[in-house]
Every structure is written in structure tokens, then in C-alpha cells.
């Protein structure tokens, strides 16, 4: 104010030309829960669940496998896979709907446990779409210069948010964590994100009530996840197929150039309908991690990638279309080159 010398123009941030995924890691909780166990609470059968969702068994966390523990373990494996040291991580993003502390963010604990040098850390609430939101932000941080290496983690413990007597959801949800290290690259390794939300459909997938309603209730109970299955199926299968094609288009590749299709592992029937609607050629490997893992929301895509790499369906340098969608209805899709 009042000075005669004009202030200097602010120095802009400078990043790098390109970003890519440098490494991936996953943590699968130890408890294997077969369909025969979840049908005890609902009027259903093993055959119905398989036919309806493709799920044969799911992973549920034990008491020791906390959200923090699973996040840190998946992140350590991603760091090892990338060859990046924890002290080189500038930002940690945890996508989750399972962290029951309103504040602080789980990411701050994870950044500390990993031994980062006080990396920036925050959580993302974008439900099942959270991991792809994190990858999009990480890519832009690296390219924009806010961070050189970013750790993106998707972690959930949905088993404790599942109503065991709800026939529509009891067999679907599961627990686990997956992580990716994003950093600088000589060539483009993460395509433009296609993302959005539709708050008009806020009620389609949500917690049954908010915590204030729980606390004032005569019989307080966990606000379980509720879902209108057929409406979600319709939206996910057909709207998201279009979003997937847009992400390919934005990245400048066609379905014939694609090696792997890795949709959020919501339901095999959604995956089938999307693949049909997108007219994916038979040469594209399709993620089916849900069969043994269940639906782990924000963790499902890195968990699925982990299995595809382990089983040889996905190789280094492959192009993969990631597409995540869920409550909100929030969604995000991008093409990535696999590490």
C-alpha cells in the first residue's frame, strides 16, 4: 500500500512435462469370507450371488488390519515397486469413506508412518471414484510443480459399514487397500481425466443417515451403506461406458490400442455390460478382481491392477483404462501406462 515501487510479479510454479505411475502396491486383508458365510444373514444362495455379481468370496479385515495399517502396507509395497524412497514423497492422498475420525485426515498418519519428510497429506471423499480422483490430482501436481512424487492410496473397511441383513448389499462390500506412486516421466503416462458428479442422484448410494441422526436416535447404530441397485446398474453400465470412451478419446487412443480395462470392481455384471457397450475387442484384458475380493470402493482399482500384474494379464508399458464410479454420483476415468 502506498509504496512507490510496484511489487514484483509472483513467481509461477514450474513442474515437468509429463507424469506417470511409477509403482503400484496392494494389501489384501487376511480373512477370506465365502458366500456361504454371508448368506446366513440374508435370504439368498451362493449361486444367486455368483450369478448376480460374480463374487465367490470376499476379503474382510481383522481387528488388527486397521485402515491405517492396510494403507501403510499398500503404500510401502508401491514405494518398493517404484524404487522411490518415502523421503522423496511430497504429498500423500488417501481416498476413503472408512476413516471414522472427522479430523485429522488419515493421510497425515500414513505420511508419518511411512517416514516421509512431513509430506503434505489429506483425504479425498469421492467414494468408489476416489482413487481415480487421486491419480488425476497427482498427475496435475507433478506437472504443475506442487509435488515431484505423490502417493495415492485407496483404502476401505466397508465390512463394518455393511448391514448383514440387507439382501441388496450384504454380499457386495469388502475391505482392502491399494496404492500408486505418481512422479515425473519422459513421456505422457497419465491421460486427461474425464470426471464429474450428479448430485441429483445423491440418494442412489449413500450412508443411511448422518452421524447427528445416529446420535439422536433411540437405538443408535452404524449408518450402513444403502444402495438402489438397479438404478445404479443402469447408470454405471451405460453412462460410464460413454465416459470410458471419452477418456480414451481424450488420451488419443482407440479401443484397439487398449491392453487392459480396469473398471471399479462394483459388480461383474456392470463390467460385462460396460465392456459390451464400449465394444471392447477380445484382446483387451478385463479386471475381475471382484470374484475373490468383493467390492472395496476406493481400493478396488489398485487391487485389481495388482492381481492383473501378478497373473500376467497386465505388463509394464501396457495401456490401461481406469474408470471409477459410485456414490455422489461421482466418477472419474483416465488412461494410464502401467509401470
Amino acid at each position, binding site marked *: 500500500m502506498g509504496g512507490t515501487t510496484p511489487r514484483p510479479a509472483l513467481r509461477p510454479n514450474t513442474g515437468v512435462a509429463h507424469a506417470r505411475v511409477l509403482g503400484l502396491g496392494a494389501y489384501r486383508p487376511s480373512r477370506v469370507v465365502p458366500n456361504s458365510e454371508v448368506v446366513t444373514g440374508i435370504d439368498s444362495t451362493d449361486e444367486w450371488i455368483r*450369478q*448376480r455379481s460374480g463374487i465367490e468370496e470376499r476379503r474382510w479385515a481383522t481387528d488388527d488390519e486397521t485402515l491405517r495399517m492396510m494403507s501403510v502396507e499398500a503404500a510401502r509395497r508401491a514405494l518398493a515397486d517404484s524404487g522411490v524412497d518415502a523421503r522423496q514423497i511430497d504429498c500423500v492422498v488417501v481416498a476413503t469413506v472408512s476413516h471414522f475420525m472427522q479430523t485429522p485426515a488419515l493421510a497425515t498418519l500414513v505420511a508419518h508412518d511411512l517416514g516421509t519428510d512431513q509430506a503434505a497429506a489429506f483425504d479425498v471423499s469421492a467414494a468408489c471414484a476416489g482413487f481415480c480422483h487421486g491419480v488425476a490430482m497427482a498427475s496435475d501436481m507433478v506437472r504443475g510443480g506442487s509435488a515431484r512424487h505423490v502417493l495415492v492410496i485407496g483404502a476401505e473397511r466397508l465390512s463394518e459399514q455393511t448391514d448383514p441383513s440387507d439382501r441388496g448389499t450384504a454380499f457386495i462390500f469388502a475391505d482392502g487397500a491399494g496404492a500408486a506412486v505418481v512422479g515425473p516421466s519422459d513421456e505422457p503416462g497419465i491421460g486427461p481425466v474425464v470426471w464429474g458428479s450428479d448430485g441429483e442422484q445423491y440418494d442412489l448410494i449413500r450412508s443411511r443417515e448422518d452421524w447427528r441422526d445416529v446420535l439422536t436416535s433411540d437405538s443408535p447404530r452404524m449408518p450402513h451403506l444403502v444402495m438402489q441397485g*438397479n438404478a445404479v*446398474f*443402469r447408470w454405471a*453400465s*451405460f453412462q460410464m461406458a460413454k465416459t470410458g470412451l471419452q477418456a480414451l478419446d481424450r488420451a488419443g487412443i482407440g479401443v484397439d490400442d487398449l491392453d487392459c480395462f480396469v473398471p471399479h470392481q462394483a459388480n461383474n*455384471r456392470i463390467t460385462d*455390460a460396460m465392456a459390451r457397450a464400449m465394444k471392447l475387442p477380445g484382446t483387451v484384458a478385463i479386471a475381475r478382481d471382484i470374484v475373490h475380493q468383493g467390492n472395496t470402493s476406493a481400493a478396488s482399482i489398485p487391487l485389481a491392477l495388482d492381481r492383473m500384474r501378478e497373473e500376467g494379464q497386465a505388463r509394464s508399458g501396457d495401456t490401461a483404462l481406469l474408470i471409477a464410479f459410485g456414490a455422489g454420483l461421482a466418477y472419474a476415468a483416465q488412461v494410464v501406462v502401467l509401470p
Partner: protein
Amino acid sequence: MATTEEIRTDLAEIVNEVAGVDTDDVQLDKSFVDDLDVDSLSMVEVVVAAEEKFGVSIPDDEVKNLKTVGDAVAYIERAQA
């Protein structure tokens, strides 16, 4: 304007593509669930494909009323009128 038989034939092809049901089995008196083994998720796929094919809108609230192939054909005929 498409005839009832033309709509049934096109719908039969959709049901065949989605659920693998023989097109000859997709007759007006057949129930999707009980006769053709088309479950509610497959029914959603059939409905979305039918919306595109026939240029009509079939809201979720209507889908549960479409018990037989004849119900669906009649709905499409009305919607196209």
C-alpha cells in the same frame, strides 16, 4: 410406424443379445423372469437397448410393470404413438 410383429422381432434380437435367449422363444405371452430367465439386471440392459432402438424412454418405475414380452411391446407401441 412399426407393427407389433416388427417390434417383437427387434425386441427378440435385443433379448437374445443380452441374455442369450433364442429369438423364437421371445413371444408375446412369455414372462421375462419366469419363462425366459431374464433377471432384473438383464432386464435393465434390455430396456436401455430398447430405448435406443425404438427411440422411447422407459423409466425405472415402468420397468417393473413390464412382466411379459407383450407388456413391453405394448409399452413401446404406446410410447411411439
